[in-house]
Each structure stands twice: as C-alpha cells, then as structure tokens.
C-alpha cells in the first residue's frame, strides 16, 4: 500500500473541515490533505440550497452551496490538497489513516496531526423505535433533502414530518414549493427543537400545522406508506389514550435529531462525552488523544454554520501548531462543567493561558426553554466570574458567553468552572 505523508490530515470537507484546513494551512502546515467521502467538497452544505448561511461571518444571507463555495475557493487558493470520493476506513493512534477510493485504491496517509471533521448523521426510525410496518416512504429529512436538492427527485406527494428539527422544517417548505402537501409536523417535546426563525419562515408562512407533544404511534402500509397514526403525549412522553388520529400520507420524514459521527474517533480511543456523543475537547479543540483535533458538528451539534466555521478555524490553527511542535500539552487546563439548565458546554476544558491570545467562547445548549430574560453565568465554584443577559434561552438555539484576558487572574487557581443559565431576577 502506498503511503503519503502530510503535516495535517483533515477528515471531512464540510464547513468544519474546510475552515480547519484553511486555518491549518495559514498557520504553517506545509503539506495538508483534506479527505472527503463524497465526490465534491462541501459536505451537507451542498444539499442546503436554502439561505440563512453566513449572516454572522459575512453579514450576508447566503445559500449553503454559495457559503461552501467561498471556503472551497479559499482552500484551493491556500493550496489545500483534496482527496475526493475517498473513504477513510481506519485511523490509528500514531496518526496513520487508511483510506480507499476508485482512483487511488488503498492508500495510507501518515500525518503529524489529524483533524476529525466527520459531521453528524441523522437519528433513524429504529433509534426512536417507531412501531408499525416497514414500507418504502420512511426517510430521514436529510436523505429527502439530498434527493430533492441534489439528485432532483421528489420522494412523495403527501408528507408528515416527525420532529421539529431544522432540516425537517426547511424540508417542509421546500416540499411545499415543489407542489407537495405537508400535512403536519409533529414534535414530541413541548417546545421547538430547531430555530424559531425556521418555524416562522418555513411552517407559519406556509400554514403548515405544527403539533407539539405529539408523536407517531404506528406506521401503516405494506409496500409504501399509506398513513400514520399519531398520538398526543404527556410531559413524560406517555401516550394519551383516545388522542389517536390517522393521517393519510405517502411519506414520513424524520427530523428527530443528529448524532456526531465518531466511529473513527472511537478507533483511536478518543473519549466521548455521553451528553454530546462527541469528543471531550479543550478550547484548542484537541481531543483526549494528543494530536487529534475535532472541528464542527463532530464535537456537538451547532445551530448555525457560522459557528462551525469559527470552531474549524480554531481547530485548524491548533493542529498546525501541534504539527510544528508549538502547541504545548502541559498547559494548565481546568474543566468546564454544565450547571443549572445547561445540557452541555463546549469546550470541556479551558487552557487558561490561552485567554492571553483573545476571548474564548463557551458554547452551550439549554435543557429547557426560558421565555423571559435570562442570565448566562460562569462561576468558579461559588464566585461569579462572568455574566451575560439574554432575552430568552431555547434548546434549539445555542447560547454562548465569552471569557477574556481580564478573567485570567480570577480563575487561575480555580479547580473548575460551572456554567448556568437562570431566570433573571424580577423578570417575571
């Protein structure tokens, strides 16, 4: 098997992979290989033909492929080499990657640093254990999105969508544009799982009904989906008897969550956080195994692509520094833990000294919605280190708070930081 050598290898060319490849190149990685399993770079952005990308970074509202193209061009200009239509089969702790492709056959890649940017996959029917028959016509929203936007096929004409994830809501609008009828979107939780702006622009504006605290009780149809039986659930997800309703449809789309895709990370023994299903990372986006970095949705599921790009830039810079021996590994890092109403927080560890180089963002998802002004707080045990007020906090939208150089002195002896999101006093 042929072996090629590089400073940094990036697995995945979605927004996280592209940004980290560019940043690694700009920070001194001479030989850089970007490995992509699809035929073109860009990842899932290529099937996201709706707009809403780049508002934060470019102050421009771009469609997914245009956003991707910006970074593809930048990567090409920076001299990033790409291996397309190439599947990584194995990675090992010594940073040796085994990949296969039609054009290169089996190929070994020996890197000095590896950036994991595999993104996520969608949760499936089996994972939410939907009962009923198993006909054609049950697809994840992302699979349907690929068919409609890339392959040019409509998978059905009458849809029910389970889950109020962003892809599901966006597909509801897209399918309506295509002349299909979206009968209903069902959400098992009492709140939206995607962005409010998608609810307004994709469902409300097209009169597509959204039913909270509802799920699918049974899928009906032997060859093709003929109907679904829906049911209301209480706060404990228990079905409410008598609330069943049968909706005729030929397609059921599932938008029931994303799971960071870390099968390769597990091969190397990288420790995963059960809360995110992604690797534990520090603010350099280095994982528990030295020299392996993680960028984008492989770490945790972001709400906006702009934040994926920023995380990728950070991971790329760190990987380049590691490859050239400039990223020390004995720096003082303190754990960052999730407190009240915070599901998880990224990074898991903060390198205090790195605050000298600039502000570091702590990114989190809340566990339950708070529809009134909230305080995002960072505590050092009991002392308040930083605080920020937001008009509301919703699980579908990421919450961030920055730590700056001025906080260094305060936290230098801390054993951990705790982040919480609480109601602002007197706001009721």
């Amino acid at each position, binding site marked *: *098997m042929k072996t090629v050598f590089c400073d940094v290898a990036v697995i995945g060319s979605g927004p996280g992979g592209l940004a980290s490849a560019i940043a690694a190149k700009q920070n001194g990685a001479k030989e850089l290989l970007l490995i992509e*399993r699809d035929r073109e770079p860009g990842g899932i952005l290529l099937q996201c033909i709706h707009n809403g990308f780049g508002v934060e970074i470019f102050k421009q509202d771009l469609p997914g492929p245009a956003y991707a193209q910006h970074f593809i061009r930048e990567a090409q200009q920076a001299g990033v080499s790409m291996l397309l*239509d190439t*599947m990584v*089969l194995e990675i090992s702790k010594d940073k040796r990657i*085994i990949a*296969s*492709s*039609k*054009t*290169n*056959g*089996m190929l070994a890649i020996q890197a000095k640093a590896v950036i994991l940017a595999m993104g996520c*996959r*969608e949760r*499936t*029917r*089996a*994972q939410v*254990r939907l*009962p*009923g*028959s*198993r*006909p*054609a*016509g049950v*697809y*994840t929203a*992302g*699979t349907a999105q*690929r*068919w*409609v936007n*890339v*392959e*040019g*096929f*409509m*998978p*059905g*004409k009458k849809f029910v969508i389970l889950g109020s994830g962003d892809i599901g809501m966006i597909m509801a609008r897209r399918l309506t544009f*295509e*002349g*299909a009828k979206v009968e209903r979107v069902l959400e098992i939780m009492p709140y939206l799982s995607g962005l409010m702006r998608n609810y307004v622009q994709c469902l409300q504006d097209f009169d597509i009904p959204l039913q909270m605290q509802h799920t699918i*009780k*049974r899928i009906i149809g*032997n*060859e*093709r989906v003929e109907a679904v039986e829906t049911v209301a659930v209480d706060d404990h997800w228990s079905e409410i008897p008598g609330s069943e309703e049968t909706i005729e449809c*030929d397609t059921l789309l599932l938008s029931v969550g994303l799971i960071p895709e870390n*099968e390769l990370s*597990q091969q190397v023994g990288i420790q995963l956080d059960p809360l995110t299903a992604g690797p534990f990372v520090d603010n350099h986006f280095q994982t528990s195994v030295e020299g392996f970095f993680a960028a984008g949705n492989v770490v945790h599921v972001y709400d906006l692509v702009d934040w994926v790009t920023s995380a990728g830039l950070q991971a790329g810079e760190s990987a380049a520094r590691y490859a050239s021996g400039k990223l020390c590994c004995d720096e003082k890092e303190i754990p960052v833990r999730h407190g009240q109403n915070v599901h998880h927080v990224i990074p898991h560890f903060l390198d205090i000294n790195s605050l000298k180089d600039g502000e570091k963002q702590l990114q989190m998802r809340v566990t339950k919605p708070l529809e009134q002004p909230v305080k995002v707080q960072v505590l050092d045990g009991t002392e308040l280190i930083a605080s920020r007020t937001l008009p509301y906090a919703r699980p579908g939208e990421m919450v961030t708070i920055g730590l700056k150089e001025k906080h260094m002195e305060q936290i230098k002896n801390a054993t951990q930081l705790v982040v919480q999101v609480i109601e602002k006093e007197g706001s009721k």
Partner: protein
Amino acid sequence: MNRDRKFDVIIIGGGISGCMLARFLSRYELKILLIEKESDIGSVTSAANTAIIHPGYDAIPGSLKAKLNVAANPMWDQLAAELGFAFTRHGDYVVAIGEEELPKLDILMERGKQNGVPGMRIVDEETMRKREPNINPAVSAALWATSGGICDPFGATVAAAENAVANGVILLRKTAFLDFIWQGKHIIGVKTNRGDFSSRWVVNAAGLFSDEVMHLAGIHQEFKITPRKGEYFVLDRNQFAVNNVLFPVPSDISKGIMVTTTVHGNTILGPNAKNINDKDDKENTKEGMNEVFEGAKKLVPEVNPRHTIATFAGLRAAGNAACLTPGVDYQHDFIVEIPEEVEGFINLGGIESPGLTAAPAVAEYAIALMKEAGEIFHEKKDWNPMRPARPQFRHLSHAEREELIKKDARYGRVVCRCENVTEGEIIAEIHSPIPALTYDAIKRRTWLGTGRCQGGFDLPRVTEILARELEIPQTEVSKKNGASTFLLRPTKDTGGEA
C-alpha cells in the same frame, strides 16, 4: 405443453427449505423448477429469524423435528464451505437464572441425550460469568451445547439457490402458485400467475402458506399454520455486544427471548412469540419491544433500548401436525411426506424453528422418500457443489482490498459507510446468478444499510446505481418490489410536474 414448461420436479416456495431441496436435487439428472411468489427468494421467514444452527436438545424425543434437527446440525460446516456463506460454530448456552431454574437444564440435557446431541455439558456460574461478563450475576449454571452455531440465514438460502441455478435449476420469482393440475389422483403440474407448468413431482415448500397448498392437494384439511410473530432488536456493536448465543430456559411454546450475536457482530435480542392471523403482519409493536427488552434483561441486565439500530419481525410457520411416532404426544411436528392419497406430491409442512437448521436434512429425507416411491436418481457427471462467495470488502485484508481494486476500481468506492460496502459489491449482486433487483435484495446480500445510519447515507446512491445498472428510471427503483418505489417524480427544475 411447451418443452420449457415441462419439468421433473417443481418446488413451490423459495425459502430455505425449497432452496436447499433444489440444491440437493440439482446433483441428479432432473429438470427442476423453483417458484417463489415474492420478488426475491428467502425474503420472508428465512430472512427474519434468529439465525441459529440448533444442536437439537429442544425438540421432543421421537419427533421428526428432533430427528431432522440432530441429523442436519453436523451438515452445516460442509455446506458453508461449499456454498460460501457465513457460519460459525461456537456452541450455545441455555442459561438458568436462580436456583429454581436449574432442574430445567437437567430436563434439556436428558432430552438432548435422547435425541443424540453430542457435546453437551453443564457449566457452573463462575465459568459462565467469565465467558460472558455481561451475564446476569444471578446466573446459577448453563447448559453448553458445543454443536450450536450461527449463520447468515438469508446468505445460506441465496447461496443454496445460486448453486442450484448454476447446476441447471430454473428459478422464477414473482411466480405465485395458484392451483394443482390433476390427472385422476395424480398431480401433474401447477397453475401459476405466469401460466401452467407440468411436472412429474410437485413439492410443497410454501412455509407460512404450506397449509393452503396441501389443502388444495386435498390432504390434511385439519392442518393449519398459525403464524407466530417474533420481534427482534439489533444493537449497535460499538455500543454493546455479547460474545455468545444465550437462551433462557424454554417455555412450552417457545425457546424464549434470546441474547445472541450475529455473524455480522451485532447483538440481537428476541424473539417474543405471538400467535397472529395475518400471514403478512410483520409490524413491530410497542408491547413487543417492551416484552423483548424485559426478556433480554433477564439474561443480560445491561441491554438498553437506546442501543437499538434496527428492528424487525419474523413469522414462524407454526403448524399443528401430530407426531407420528407411537406413544409421543406432540402436536407441532414437521410434516415431510409423500402422502398416499395423492401421487406425485411431496409435502413439507409446519417447518418452523428449527427449520433453518433442519433444511439440509429435510432435503435428504425428501429425496429418500422419493427413492422409496420408486424414483430412480442419476447423478450428473458435471455437478458442481461449489458456489464461491463473492468478495466482501469489509472482510478482506488491506492487501486483498488493494488487489481487488486493481482488478475492478469500483471496489474502491465505499457506498455504505457504516458497513463499508462498496459499489463493486452492489454491482456484482445486481448482475449475480439470482440478480438483486431491489434495495432490500441488495441489503440482504451485502449487508449494506444495516448499520447505525440505516441507509440514510447510501439510499440515494443505491437507487442511482440500481437505475443505472438495470437501465430503468430512478422512479422505478423499489424497496421490495414494484409497488414499493422510493421516488415519485423528478423535481420541477429537472422536468417533473407537481
């Protein structure tokens, strides 16, 4: 009748029993037709079961079931070697939990001895905990039967059928048996949705529908298949896996909810057992899921529904045939017979579990009955028992992969990212001796789409490959046959109309 419609033997039903019989008969100078009503062989019970090659300690001593199970078990090593399907023999365990279940192991041991099962022993709780660290700590002992094995049951079915076809058997899929053609009390052929075929022998290997077929032959009006549904749950091997085949102590009607490993390395839980009326009802239910997980937890407390990556349900073709051995009171025996009332008819019925295990012995037994009935068999000079397995990328070494891609670059392109199935493998199955024409047919043959993303990534790519290779529009590509198409029409900007 047209020469192409005249056969020596017609087999109704392309499940494991029919395909194995076709393969065993194919070594003789006989013109054989195998008909299957579904779009693919082995797609009903043979594709949805626990995949166990049973030692034979469960079956009631004196029953035909016991005899054929025990006779068939040792045949599987050679079969797997000749036909190139996945099979491993590491034994199986019946696990007693708590002291009160211990006597049941002795009963099974005694039954096994009577049936002639070799290599059984009792292993103590400590050994059991060592061999299966996840086992319920309340384990008291286990019956270890070293002849137990696991196989790829669909793989065995398709391999047997391919070998039969290579040796001259004609296979017609989407061909449904409608009725017999008679001459006096002699069956001389069958009517199907594809016209009539004549034959000297007709075999009922219709599985779930074997009762309806034998009633049309005018025999055993009292015989009835009651489909017994079993639900299964497949777990992500990265998240949880056991090493062994674990049975609970059995109940009167079922071997119980097992925790077992597949030849693909996944842990599989199930089946429960529910008698139903509808022979097409393969729905998973919430009750079934709860029952299976409760049952599985008894053996391995750590199993968690969160680790599920796939669910399915299978129907056992459970019959009500009385055991013919005098003095044996048993009402669920196999039927393998040439009935006196009808000529030219070989009748297989009630071939439920351990029907997969027993299939090669059922085939040999049926051939012996034909000999007894005066059929003279001439061996083919050029019979080839071998059916080499096609390359499966994920099972190859890097060097083998490299060689394969050099020969055919399409083996370098991975389409299914969870199970590492390549475009080359998909294309090979589409153009194989029994072509895979649907997504499910490819899935069963290659194991593509069975992993944790359940086809989310590969589905659009496979529909594209199927359309290209079969030269049909993508909108005609289906999951299991004509009516189960995936796609409705092209989008507006690619020429479709809403």
